[in-house]
């Protein structure tokens, strides 16, 4: 492996690789400088309270500890994703990454039942990204973590970061407690458009509802496949509620959601919208038009087709300008940039996915 990596380093440099999904990890203590005494006490006493049954861990045990690559645990005893030196060695320097967007997943307060605590944690996690990471390495871009269940508090946090080029997008998790097109979330869209920031939506989180519309599944593999289904519901809601009619400059990036389901969802929406359009007169165009204009997708975990040309069909239907490379470092299903894309892709398309599309979307120089 090392020999192979040595060989491809120059390729990364040439491509100007942009990785739209990496996961730096903080400890609770890392956030202490930006939490008030009250919230520090609260956190120490009551801990995180998500919409599921466990104090620590997850409803469905992951496939590996911290869902991380086994080799991503730093020697200093920290968690995977907590150490910039190891991240350099395994990702940034190794592949010649030009920019990487940090999407911290926890502890960030997102989806917390206590809305004020969620807002306090989001603020702290944003400060930590800048102080702990961006200031040390300018290749890294931060996400504006927002307490998304509270639209107004999210607006405040987005406005606080507006104009700061260290932030690449606003970050939400996909499993919100209501469908994302509902009006309670519109302050987030309004503030993101004002700030000129795309909204990245990363899979996971807990809605508080059963994980499928037919009840709770049994296995982690079902949770993983289910992300596509809940993202279909979320995308449907954003389109059908008319969010893009109200916020025509809004840009949504789907992260770690896969993408092969997207064209079929557009066809399905169009077919039934033709019959039911008198229910949704606020939609001025076919649903798939909004889909093509307002959504971007990221590669990891990319669907694998038995026939390579089938994946190319799907990419073609989504649009070659809409696909962004993501590695998901340091998680177990990390995609190596050397191996991730189909070998049959020509250089132009490869460059778009690895670099040009993300630079255009995020305005990276």
């Amino acid at each position: 492996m090392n020999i192979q990596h040595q060989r491809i380093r120059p390729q990364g440099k040439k491509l100007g690789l942009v990785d739209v999904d990496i996961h730096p990890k903080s400890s609770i203590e890392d956030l202490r400088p930006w939490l008030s005494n009250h919230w520090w006490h609260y956190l120490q006493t009551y801990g995180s309270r998500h919409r599921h049954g466990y104090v620590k861990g997850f409803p469905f045990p992951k496939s590996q500890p911290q869902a991380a690559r086994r080799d991503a645990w730093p020697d200093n005893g920290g968690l995977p994703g907590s150490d910039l030196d190891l991240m350099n060695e395994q990702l940034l320097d190794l592949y010649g990454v030009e920019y990487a967007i940090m999407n911290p997943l926890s502890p960030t307060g997102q989806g917390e039942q206590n809305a004020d605590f969620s807002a306090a944690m989001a603020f702290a996690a944003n400060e930590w990204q800048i102080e702990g990471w961006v200031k040390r390495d300018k290749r890294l871009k931060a996400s504006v973590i927002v307490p998304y269940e509270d639209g107004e508090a999210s607006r405040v946090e987005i406005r606080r970061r507006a104009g700061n080029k260290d932030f690449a997008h606003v970050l939400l998790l996909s499993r919100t407690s209501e469908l994302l097109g509902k009006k309670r979330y519109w302050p987030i869209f309004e503030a993101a458009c004002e700030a000129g920031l795309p909204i990245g939506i990363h899979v996971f989180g807990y809605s508080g509802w059963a994980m499928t519309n037919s009840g709770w599944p049994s296995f982690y593999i079902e949770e993983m496949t289910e992300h596509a289904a809940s993202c279909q519901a979320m995308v449907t809601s954003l389109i059908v509620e008319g969010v893009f009619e109200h916020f025509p400059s809004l840009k949504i990036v789907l992260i770690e959601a896969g993408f092969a389901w997207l064209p079929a969802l557009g066809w399905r929406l169009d077919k039934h919208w033709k019959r039911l359009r008198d229910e949704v007169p606020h939609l001025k165009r076919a649903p798939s038009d909004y889909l093509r204009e307002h959504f971007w997708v990221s590669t990891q975990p990319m669907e694998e087709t038995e026939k390579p040309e089938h994946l190319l069909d799907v990419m073609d239907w989504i649009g070659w300008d809409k696909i962004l490379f993501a590695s998901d470092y340091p998680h177990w299903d990390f995609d190596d940039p050397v191996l991730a894309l189909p070998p049959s892709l020509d250089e132009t398309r490869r460059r778009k996915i690895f670099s040009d599309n993300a630079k255009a979307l995020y305005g990276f120089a």
Partner: protein
Amino acid sequence: MNVTAQAIDCDVHPTVPDIKVLLPHLDEIWRESIEGRGISSLESASYPPKAPISARPDWRNGNGLAATNPAKLAEQVLDRWQAGLAICNCLYGVQLPFNEDMAKAFTRALNDWIAKEWLDRDPRLRASIVIPLQNVEYAVDEVERCAADRRFVQVLVLAMNETPLGRRHLWPIYAAAERHGLPIGIHAGSSFRHPVTSLGWPSYYLEDYVSQSQAFQSQLASLVCEGVFAKFPNLKVVLLESGVTWLPGFLWRFSKFWRGLRTEIPWVDRAPDEIVRDQVRLTIQPLDVPQEVDVVARAIEHLRSDDILLYASDYPHWQFDEDAVIPEGISAILKRKIQIDNPLATYSRLKEHAT
């Protein structure tokens, strides 16, 4: 007209015109309850009767209802498209009650009504056994009771229920179905135990209807992961009114995760896409494709199976106009398979003569 003579229509929906038609098939206590408790209708909110999808305009009668009797069905579907056989999947909401005794009484009444008022009146008709999933013992009893009538060719459940369909407590139903050569038909619709999306209740019926395909994805994941297909290798599962084009993307994702996570479910010893191609079938309407014929052809090719699609009009739901039951972009050879060969291979009882 692009339908082959003797095509087998695998999804038509008789309408219960009034709850009173079930009275002769109910016990005294439920007959009295309909009157005494004011149970005026069990129509499911999955299909608001006046919503455009629920019935094609030219098939509605003066009251706005469609498919209320077998003569209309014969005129509008069987004769028009020269169907050899049609499978009746009644969607009246008899599976929805929270009271399991009530669900038992009403599913039983519905099955008896279908046999008497539909199957007895047209030898081309077949039907699915509607069961009360609320109570597995009751459900198995109903399968056993109806299976004796060979015109019942399938067991019918809704796409959204209390628990995912793979869960082990439901397996006696699958054992009974397999024993009698009855596929499990999963039809769009909800018993409303959970919101119709995993992120809560949508605002619009359009979202509700579109979300059905999410349920089918979760059900396939559940049936495969729990090991239903390994335990019951002769069982067929038919997805009815599920949409079609979501399937390839789902299987690519599911099979990839299976390769990475299969140690969690070691009894699943084949890739999910292989299992689904062997034991799962889908009806062709509504076919969720765009207008472009070349895209339709590509999307169908992505299924990588000529055996997986079954012809269905979805009558009286408004999925197409005029006679366009089978969209452009499907080859003549595949059409023949979809309309005759695949249904016969799926429903073993269709090969038998009418009783």
